């Protein structure tokens, strides 16, 4: 029997290549005869395209030029509503919307030519905020600017207000956030009517790109092939936009007959691709004097930008998480995703939940203060317990103990002692300190019936030597897919970690195991790897493998089997855990198969002269089921917390007429090595029976809680109650001045 690989920090599968510079990202690839592509974009937020002018100084005959009329199939990026064109035809709906494509062998001439194309626009009225969009004076999408509207009802909210001892209202807003993966987006494509289209590039979801290109070119499945190259970070930013870039590269390749590479520079990547949805949340909360939640009325609105893209799904997750991990008998959540004239907002780690959880966890502190209760005590009195129901009426069947997570977080952070000391010492000090916390949950996998509809598939195959290959479209983008799926397969089959390889995600070769999003890779795809590996083992058991065989015995069985029967391969299909049901119409039922649970505590200092807030210490306690790989899991939490610190304090997308005005790393600030506090990561492990070896989802969870915890700590340090993200020095200065005025 080999030693268990689960809970062991084996070396990252592709780690060596990354440490030696050998790992090949899309911009590292060069093909014979390859030329470069560039995108001409809309200079205006909204309007009719009057003319496209080409500066006669440029020898345009040298360039491949693609317009909307060159698209062989349907001019849209197939996703949910198919409203987003691949190239704007007669109207533009946001700044930076792609209008025209150019290709040339020389990158420098290409850039010169891009600047020499003028798109003339007859302006149409545009909309730049949630408020303007809701007002409806200008309609920029559909009949009413609304992409999606959702409602959740539990109990009877209307009758609850009269019984309340206290009703507290609050309004909270969050800004956009740029994913800022360090590898900018890029694609290489080849294409011809005879061979179809092949694309290599940086992406999370090869089959999303596959679907988009089939529609765009009107090609059958087998004529479109999408291959993921090493991907330098995604965080959601490479979920849907890669389809657009792949489409552009493929159109240029199709027309020029040459391989075409498109690599965005940082400014183009920041200005044109998706960001986290800005949001506005209104809360009305009824409580009894003894600190029990009686009713929650929540109105949640997100800004989807100019096209629908993934907004309905982002809205769904944000809505379901809006009432948090609390037991409340009466809940009403109304929510809308609305259109504005900004580039479409999209997926970013947490996917709507960080926005609605920010509002809730600020509101919880506000209600606690109104009741005269400590923030931890108020939450403790209302935590969901096993057997109780969430806002969607989901009965929590798994064993959970949020109070224990809270106790652990308070103890590790020395919360109460520090809070008392800071209250004593802050006085009129220049530097004020405070503690803040947030309690939250995150559903793993697709929402509601999503996983059932995805119907993911994984295959595992064995060679005659007993070497294993996992075939899945789930991508490695730094989070550890290759490593954990390998661990799960090796553990299931009882073979060494080194015997298992993972196929490059290539739609020509691997089945569709679904998109690499939604904290689903470990829990859902990992389970499928486990099932397929079990299937393979079953086959071998029927063909002479002993149940306690060594790896050598396994290899022998593989050799005998393949000699007799040829290929040794097993396939698994998604099956929902028993007893899970969801009503898409009423938004009731089991929103997720399971949740990860967490309590995070931030210690913050605020310099009252420079108005800078910094996080001095951070404690993250969470329950994510069984931890497959402790170092990777810890890396997920620390990295997520760091991104959330950026979201809370630094990352400010400045909009000017729907265009990002600070599309540079110089003035869009993310946390550096100098900014991150010590982050103490603690896992409480409760194995989940329907996850591989007991694992649940982990990736998005740490993005949800730190921002409200940090703003709660700022309030505890300074008395300043901020309701908006990010809490930049400018925002803090304005608030401090108001207090002193």
């Amino acid at each position: 029997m080999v030693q268990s690989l689960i809970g062991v920090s084996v070396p990252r599968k592709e780690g060596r290549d990354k440490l030696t510079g050998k790992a090949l990202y899309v911009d590292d690839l060069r093909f014979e005869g390859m030329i470069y592509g560039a995108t001409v974009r809309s200079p205006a937020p909204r309007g009719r395209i009057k003319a496209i002018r080409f500066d006669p100084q440029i020898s345009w005959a040298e360039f491949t030029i693609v317009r909307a009329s060159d698209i062989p199939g349907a001019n849209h990026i197939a996703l949910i509503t198919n409203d987003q064109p691949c190239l704007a035809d007669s109207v533009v709906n946001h700044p930076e919307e792609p209008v025209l494509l150019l290709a040339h062998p020389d990158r420098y001439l290409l850039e010169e030519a891009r600047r020499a194309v003028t798109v003339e626009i007859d302006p149409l009225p545009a909309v730049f905020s949630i408020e303007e969009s809701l007002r409806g004076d200008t309609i920029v999408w559909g009949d009413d600017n609304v992409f999606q509207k959702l409602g959740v009802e539990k109990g009877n909210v209307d009758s609850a207000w009269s019984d309340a001892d206290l009703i507290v209202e609050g309004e909270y807003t969050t800004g956009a956030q740029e994913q800022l993966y360090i590898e900018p987006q890029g694609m290489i494509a080849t294409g011809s009517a005879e061979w179809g289209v092949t694309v290599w590039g940086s992406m999370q979801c090869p089959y999303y790109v596959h679907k988009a290109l089939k529609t765009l070119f009107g090609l059958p499945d087998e004529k479109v092939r999408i291959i993921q190259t090493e991907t330098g970070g995604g965080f959601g930013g490479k979920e849907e936009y890669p389809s657009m870039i792949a489409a552009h590269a493929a159109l240029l390749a199709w027309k020029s007959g040459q391989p075409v590479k498109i690599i965005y520079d940082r400014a183009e990547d920041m200005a044109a691709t998706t960001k986290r949805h800005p949001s506005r949340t209104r809360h009305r909360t009824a409580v009894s004097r003894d600190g029990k939640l009686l009713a929650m009325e929540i109105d949640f609105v997100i800004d989807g930008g100019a096209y629908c893209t993934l907004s309905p799904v982002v809205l769904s997750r944000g809505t379901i998480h809006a009432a948090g991990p609390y037991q409340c008998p009466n809940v009403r959540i109304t929510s809308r995703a609305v259109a504005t004239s900004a580039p479409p907002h999209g997926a970013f780690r947490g996917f709507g939940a960080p926005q609605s959880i920010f509002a809730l966890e600020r509101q919880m502190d506000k209600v606690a203060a109104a009741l005269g209760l400590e923030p931890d005590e108020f939450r403790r009195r209302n935590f969901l317990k096993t057997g109780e129901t969430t806002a969607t009426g989901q009965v929590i069947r798994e064993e959970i103990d949020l109070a224990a997570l809270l106790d652990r977080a308070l103890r590790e952070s020395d919360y109460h002692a520090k809070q008392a000391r800071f209250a004593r010492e802050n006085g009129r000090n220049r530097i004020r300190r405070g503690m803040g916390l947030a309690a939250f949950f995150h559903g793993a996998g697709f929402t509601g019936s999503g996983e059932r509809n995805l119907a993911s598939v994984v295959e595992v195959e064995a060679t005659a030597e007993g070497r294993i290959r996992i075939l899945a479209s789930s991508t490695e983008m730094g989070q550890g897919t290759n490593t954990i799926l390998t661990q799960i397969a090796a553990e299931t089959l009882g073979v060494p970690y080194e015997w298992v390889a993972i196929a490059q995600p290539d739609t020509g070769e691997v089945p569709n195991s679904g998109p690499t999003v939604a904290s689903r890779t470990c829990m859902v795809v990992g389970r499928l790897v486990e099932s397929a590996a079990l299937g393979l083992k079953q086959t071998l058991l029927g063909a002479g493998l002993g149940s306690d065989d060594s790896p050598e015995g396994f290899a022998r069985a593989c050799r005998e089997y393949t000699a007799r029967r040829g290929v040794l391969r097993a396939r698994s299909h998604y099956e929902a855990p028993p007893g899970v049901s969801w009503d898409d119409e009423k938004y009731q039922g089991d929103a997720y198969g399971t949740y990860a649970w967490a309590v995070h505590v931030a210690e913050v200092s605020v310099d009252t002269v420079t108005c800078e807030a910094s996080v001095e210490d951070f404690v993250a306690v969470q329950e994510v089921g069984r931890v497959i790989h402790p170092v990777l899991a810890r890396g997920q939490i620390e990295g997520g917390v760091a991104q959330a610190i950026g979201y809370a304090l630094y990352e400010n997308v400045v909009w000017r007429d729907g265009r990002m005005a600070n599309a540079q790393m110089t003035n869009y600030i993310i946390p550096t090595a100098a900014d991150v506090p010590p982050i103490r990561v603690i896992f409480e492990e409760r194995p989940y029976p329907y996850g591989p070896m007991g694992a649940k989802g982990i990736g998005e969870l740490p993005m949800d809680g730190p921002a409200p915890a940090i703003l709660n700590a700022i309030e505890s340090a300074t008395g300043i109650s901020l309701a908006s993200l990010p809490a930049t020095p400018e925002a803090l200065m304005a608030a401090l001045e108001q207090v002193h005025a």
Partner: protein
Amino acid sequence: MPKVPIALSVNGERRAFAAWPMARLLDVIRQELGLTGTKEGCGEGECGACSVLLDGRLVNSCLVPARQADGAEITTIEGIARRREWDGVRKAFLDCGGAQCGICTPGMILATVSLLGQNPNPSEADVRRALAGNLCRCTGYLRIFEAVARAGRRNPPGECLQ
């Protein structure tokens, strides 16, 4: 303007070629020399993904005109990768989870090598200062700090803090 001749030593090898007068050292390394381990993250000297050693000094190769590197000694990640003396750094990054998506990793390794070359026993503050010019969006930096500390102290091989 015509291309200008440039001769430099890359990872110990003499290379001569012609480059546009305003070509960046980064472009020369990646395109002329085909050393793609050096990455471009921002093109404006903010992220450090394009870090190389120029005459032993850590620089952002996206900010250095290739002409300025004429006659210089350049070390890229490919050069570091060949050197056994830095095995400890690679092992520490691997053990501690210092590399996730890997795109900042070559720059981080160069910055680490540059630091440890000058100060084999850096404090955490030293490490933070030395890596402050290299952005990482995946790790939150702490796994990297731990890797650098471990490589610096020449700790015996083993697993990092879990």
